[in-house]
């Protein structure tokens, strides 16, 4: 078996800090093997992909075979066997996003970057992947950069996005923080938080659609004795009348949105 420790002779292993971090992940769980998924995320944050020595290190710490670790690493799409770019760009091409423009965006980016699916640009900056539904369908067509959401994309906004990333321009998620590198993102996924939780808005426009319409119409959940603030019974008499105006009110919401936000969803609600 190949030596995996950093003092090994057959192959230079992972450094001592990384090994210590890997071991620390196992302490979060009643049974150490539960740590394997976050451990592999950590391996990627250090190695840029799942490497043979990363697999050996996980196997060694967990007391399982390297084959078992490989079996897990090859099952999940976020684990990469080839080096990805500093910015891993995903384009949703599941049905709804595809139909609404995801297919066109993906084709445009392949051409623009001169790469195929799951390939990296020669400068190592950008890798491209078509992804499955990323739970942001109300912001279709959806993209991701290092697993941060980039909502309401067009072919033009998508090419501008990758150009900015390549040029080193700071890019901010449409519903999140400043984009970090893929390796930094992998470290957060391994359970080592960075300091960006407070960046970005609470919600995008689409997430607030129903709440805004409800506020406009005075619609609330039933009131309670314990909680005074949801709508008083007096509100309800008017509601039926107001309901008939709902369509117009929704249109008003749309107008407000497009007025304040040409990129859709990019509005920062709370910042």
């Amino acid at each position: 078996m190949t030596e995996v420790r950093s003092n090994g002779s057959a192959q230079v292993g992972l450094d001592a800090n990384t090994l210590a971090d890997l071991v620390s992940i196992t302490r979060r769980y009643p049974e150490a093997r539960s740590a394997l998924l976050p451990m592999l995320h950590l391996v990627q944050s250090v190695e840029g992909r799942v490497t043979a020595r990363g697999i050996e290190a996980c196997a060694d710490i967990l007391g399982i075979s390297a084959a078992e670790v490989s079996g897990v690493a090859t099952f999940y799409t976020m684990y990469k066997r080839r080096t990805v770019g500093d910015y891993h760009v995903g384009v949703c091409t599941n049905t709804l996003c595809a139909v609404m423009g995801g297919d066109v965006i993906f084709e445009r980016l392949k051409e623009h970057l001169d790469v195929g699916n799951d390939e990296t640009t020669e400068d190592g900056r950008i890798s491209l992947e078509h992804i499955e539904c990323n739970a942001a369908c109300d912001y279709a067509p959806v993209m991701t950069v290092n697993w941060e959401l980039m909502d309401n994309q067009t072919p033009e906004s998508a090419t501008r996005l990758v150009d900015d990333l390549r040029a080193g321009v700071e890019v901010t998620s449409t519903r999140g923080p400043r984009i970090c590198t893929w390796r930094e993102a992998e470290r957060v996924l391994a359970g080592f938080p960075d300091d960006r939780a407070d960046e970005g808005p609470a919600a995008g426009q689409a997430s607030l659609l129903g709440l805004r319409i409800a506020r406009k119409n005075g619609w609330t959940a039933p009131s309670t004795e314990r909680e005074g603030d949801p709508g008083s019974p007096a509100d309800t008499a008017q509601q039926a009348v107001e309901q008939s105006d709902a369509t117009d009110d929704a249109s008003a919401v749309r107008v407000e949105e497009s007025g304040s936000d040409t990129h859709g969803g990019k509005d920062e609600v709370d910042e």
Partner: protein
Amino acid sequence: MSEPDISPLTPVLTKHWDSDRPWTLESYEGTGGYAALDTAFAMTQDDVIALVKDSGLRGRGGAGFPTGMKWGFIPQGPEKDGTVKPHYLVVNADESEPGTCKDVPLMMATPHTLLEGVILACYAIRANHAFIYVRGEVLHVVRRLQRAVQEAYLAGHLGEDIHGSGFDLQVTVHAGAGAYICGEETALLDSLEGRRGQPRLRPPFPAVAGLYAAPTVINNVESIASVPCIVRNGAEWFSSMGTEKSKGMTLYSLSGHVRNPGQLEAPLGVTLRQLLDIAGGVREGHQLKFWTPGGSSTPILTAEHLDVPLDYEGVGAAGSMLGTKALQIFDETTCIVRAVLRWTEFYKHESCGKCTPCREGTWWLVQTLARLEQGKGSEADLETLLDQCDNILGRSFCALADGAVSPITSSIQYFRQEYVDHFTRGGCPFDPAAATLFAPLGASA
């Protein structure tokens, strides 16, 4: 209590999403957050379970199983051999059913709502360790959860002797690594145990032998996040919303060819017609063609189903399932064959490979559908396709394969002629550009 007039929209879970930094502990406590803990700690564990049973809350992750009943299945007391196994709560935050986009905004905006629900649920089922299994592809949600857990520990809402109750709880945020199948509860458990995410044969059910073969409750994010308001406001308050067997408010996610996509929190039983009226309707100049009531695994419906009550019974009676309430709207510019082929490719890609009918079957479905979509199919291919579906449905451990055949069989039921048109014309009769969001106004198929 007399029958109250219920508003068309009833923001409860979404109510504070537009507040100032609602993800912070300070903001959450400012709206009465974590007060439900003391209410619950003053009750017995069994009374909390009874309260949730009485509320009528049913699982919001797709199957609609009564939440309180699920909690009640956790065996109490020692095993037959006298040992006492720990209990676990696992929150399914692996939101990935195509069309489903409600849990991600909830965790992004108000992660403490979920955490308070986690504490209440763990107290009720007597668990001292909970896991939030969140998909890895939503990094900022992972961050907000990590921060919320950290804040809750520091404030004494988590850890030892919470609020002086003697109840201890540890919460671990666990990021997945990209696999749709891990949203299936037993595959999720295998994944959480550090293995390939493959479903388990049941029985034994997770309530008896779940995580580490110990009694485990697995609940969807929205289900757990709905618990604090029930403890705070009472079962009667919650069940005053909704229909006879589908109680409470829920998140409907409207997406696709609509003027205003987004989240609409309404009492169960609202219809798509009402939601579309409220939200501004199908995109301008177009008509509804087909829609999913609860993600791509639920059989599609059409304009004739606009008045179906969107509750568990109503959608079931219409031949589909409420699922995750992911209302994906497609207008007349969308080719049904293209849409269904793409979903089928998804199921093929996401089949975990454990069961032969699913692993091989989804592969064959793609072959047959692709031929039809390219206009190279025949009437015989349509029959083969239905035959393949018949051989796949109900023959695997989990529901992935059943979900894979749903769009196919339902689309042939409603749009058979469109399949035929593909091979009689020798190609797709639709212009995909007309279906895009950036298509010029008035473009048509």
